[in-house]
């Protein structure tokens, strides 16, 4: 049901973009994108500041390898970092390569009973493929937002179209992102466990991204809309002299409207894992707990049972047992 509702919502948004764009180009091409960017920036900054200003009272590193202890025991610097540098490397592997997700296995009970573990790398692969291609596609899109277009952007798209298939040349990232998103969606729907835990928001993000990618693909390969017009619009936005040129295909308004929704929705959703992954205290702290004292900014005093109270309560018994007393 959640999947269905979110699909419907994304379809409705697309329809709104399609017809709205033709009827009210200024609203869908200028006002909404500006509003979305504003919401994104303000919302994201707010959320990050909220996290940043919430203290980390304890150093709760999750250690996934041998600690640094005795000099003759080889420690695992990447999975159990003891220094800042090693922690940065651990984080980099986490953020750039999704190292923890790479560990994924599947546990199944087979006859015997035997608990059997098997490799499950597809989630990791699809996640990695999606995130990297999405970043690459965003980077490629800079050709619409920068004038003159920097060489690196041109090189990126040349690489992406390396195989020179079709006209316009097919970007590999377009295929990969659609495949990865499709896998992630099908996995959510087909696996009963994952379907059980999936919420409206989970499907919504996926459908939004799929809609975004599909409308882009249609624009480039099928409609072949006039891209100089689109660049004009994009440039207008980024140079604060917005205008919507005539002749832009309505599908383009689906594309930009879904993007606006995604961007505006971002700070209020699970998509904030983009920033959150950097702040996770089980990953971004070195396991140097016993070497370096971690300070808790609110280390409230608590009621304790002191030695004096203890000795007072058990005085006779301590005495009888012949154990030393502080106050004889």
């Amino acid at each position: 049901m959640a999947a269905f509702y979110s699909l419907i919502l994304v379809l409705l948004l697309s329809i709104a973009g399609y017809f709205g764009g033709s009827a009210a180009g200024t609203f869908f091409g200028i006002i909404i994108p500006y509003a979305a960017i504003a919401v994104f920036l303000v919302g994201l900054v707010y959320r990050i500041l909220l996290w940043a200003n919430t203290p980390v009272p304890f150093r709760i590193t999750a250690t996934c390898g041998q600690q640094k202890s005795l000099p003759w025991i080889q420690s695992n610097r990447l999975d159990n970092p003891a220094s800042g540098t090693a922690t940065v490397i651990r984080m980099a592997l986490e953020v750039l390569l999704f190292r923890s997700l790479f560990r994924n296995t599947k546990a199944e009970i087979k006859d015997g009973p035997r608990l059997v573990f098997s490799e499950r790398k597809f989630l990791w692969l699809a996640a990695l493929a999606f995130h990297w291609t999405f970043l690459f596609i965003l980077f490629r899109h800079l050709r619409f937002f920068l004038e003159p277009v920097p060489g690196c952007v041109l090189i990126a798209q040349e690489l992406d179209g390396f195989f020179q298939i079709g006209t316009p040349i097919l970007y590999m990232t377009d295929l990969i992102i659609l495949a990865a998103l499709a896998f992630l969606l099908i996995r959510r729907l087909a696996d009963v466990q994952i379907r059980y835990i999936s919420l409206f928001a989970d499907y919504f993000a996926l459908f939004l991204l799929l809609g975004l990618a599909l409308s882009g693909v249609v624009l480039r390969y099928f409609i072949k809309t006039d891209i100089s017009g689109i660049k004009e619009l994009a440039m207008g936005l980024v140079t604060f002299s917005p205008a919507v040129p005539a002749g832009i295909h309505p599908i383009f308004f689906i594309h930009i409207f879904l993007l606006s929704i995604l961007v505006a929705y971002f700070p209020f959703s699970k998509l904030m894992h983009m920033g959150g992954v950097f702040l996770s205290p089980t990953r971004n702290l070195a396991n140097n707990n016993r070497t370096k004292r971690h300070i808790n900014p609110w280390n409230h005093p608590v009621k304790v049972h002191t030695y004096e109270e203890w000795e007072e309560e058990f005085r006779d018994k301590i005495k009888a047992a012949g154990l030393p007393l502080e106050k004889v």
Partner: protein
Amino acid sequence: MSEETLSPEQLVQIDYTPSKKNWLDPTVEFRKGTYCYSGVAKHVKYLDLPNPREWQPTDSDWKLPPDWKQIILDGMKERLEKYRSFRLFMDICVRCGACADKCHFYVGSGDPKNMPVMRAELLRSVYRRYFTAAGKLGKLAGARDLDEGVLKEWFYYFYQCTECRRCSVFCPYGIDTAEITMIGRELLNLVGCNINWVIEPVSNCFRTGNHLGIQPHGFKDSMEFAAEDLEEITGIKIEPPINKKGAEILFIIPSADYFASPHYYTLLGYMLLFKEIGLDYTFSAFAGEGGNFGLFTSHEMIKRLNAKIYEEAKRLGVKWILGGECGHMWRVMHQYMDTMNGPADFLEEPVSPLTGTRFENALSTKMVHICEFTADLIKNNKLKIDASRNNHRKVTFHDSCNPARALGLFEEPRYILRKACNYFYEMPENTIREQTFCCGAGAGLGTDENLEMRMRGGFPRANAVKYVHDKYGVNLLSCICAIDKATLPTLMDYWVPGVEVGGVHELLANALVIEGERERTTDLRGDEMEQSGAETTDA
């Protein structure tokens, strides 16, 4: 088990198909064998915790305070402001499901709410409802009102998590379910919903200094009893030092070591080792508990109980602290003690009096793990070890959750075991080291009324033991955790009969050749050793 005891064959028939019902509608059934009894009023009261009363989870009326909802919501707000971990973990989960089958309780029960992601969602759904804008949309946003049904669900599932942190290893954002469960339990404690298996030890420990409530004279008796046993076995006379001022080292152990079996043999092991190397140390009857069930109650309670350690070290004027074999104790000592009750500037940097090794990884906290200490002794040839004395033991090693995932203490115990035992076998790699499976009864859940759940939760661990038992004839499961030693024997009897449970220092002491000892024919348990081909080797 419940009335009709489930056989292992029955228990393992697990249906992993989740119910069709929307999980946002709370359903919880307190079935015998799957939950723990409530905290007894006397103990709740002694600790000045809220709402002491007579009640049980099976009661329909939990006798909550009238404003309980507000108390919980205020408590959540306070914790969202105090713990970045909590706020972040509420916000960023994408429900990718990588954690699902990493939880021993999920593997063993098939209950979808035992998937770590769901355990967090139980709390997250309320967080969304009251602390986010989207939550006003209700179910569509995965939000729900806080009501008694939700609270009961929290109780059931937060006391069905052993805070082992295995799921956190696999989470792409390092979301730590232990953190969620700890906060969840703190919230439950605010309205007086706790379990007696946690609250009674906490109350005893607060008062007397150990979980069982053993008073100072009883403490002394236990230690002397152990010394007598040792004299009988080895012919060596030992006088256990207690509350000895000016000793070089304060030795902290979990109290189970002196009142429970098989922990007891590990205690004998420490005593024998320290006698052999002539260590100047002392036990403390006041700080007679390394274990800290505060960890299973609230952060505040951790601090209240843990305060005794540094206080006693200061009072006795020791140079540094040595800690025995215990799992969650080491999570507290390693990740909380210095922050909560430090700085320990009255202590000295730990240096082994025998080898001169400076324990640089303990420079600030000034507390060294016994396995680090002993591994260093062996490495520096300070011990004479006859590993053949353990030839009747085919040994495997269970990494306890906390030393594994809070410290990364993997090689030190293995080094000792390999030196002390000729037959050592590892369990499959998905079940050891950072991927180790919980005993199924940590975090205060090791009580008899919870037996079915313990057997379910312990299944993955037991199954890995069965593998090495079948393949190599493993008959001893060694570990460095007092809760393990208490709960694994039951688990082994159920799933892998024929495997005993023991400590690393028990095995070491079996093999330890002591100056002036009488010929050893039995190990510390009184079991016959194999007599053939006993060779003495210098480690």
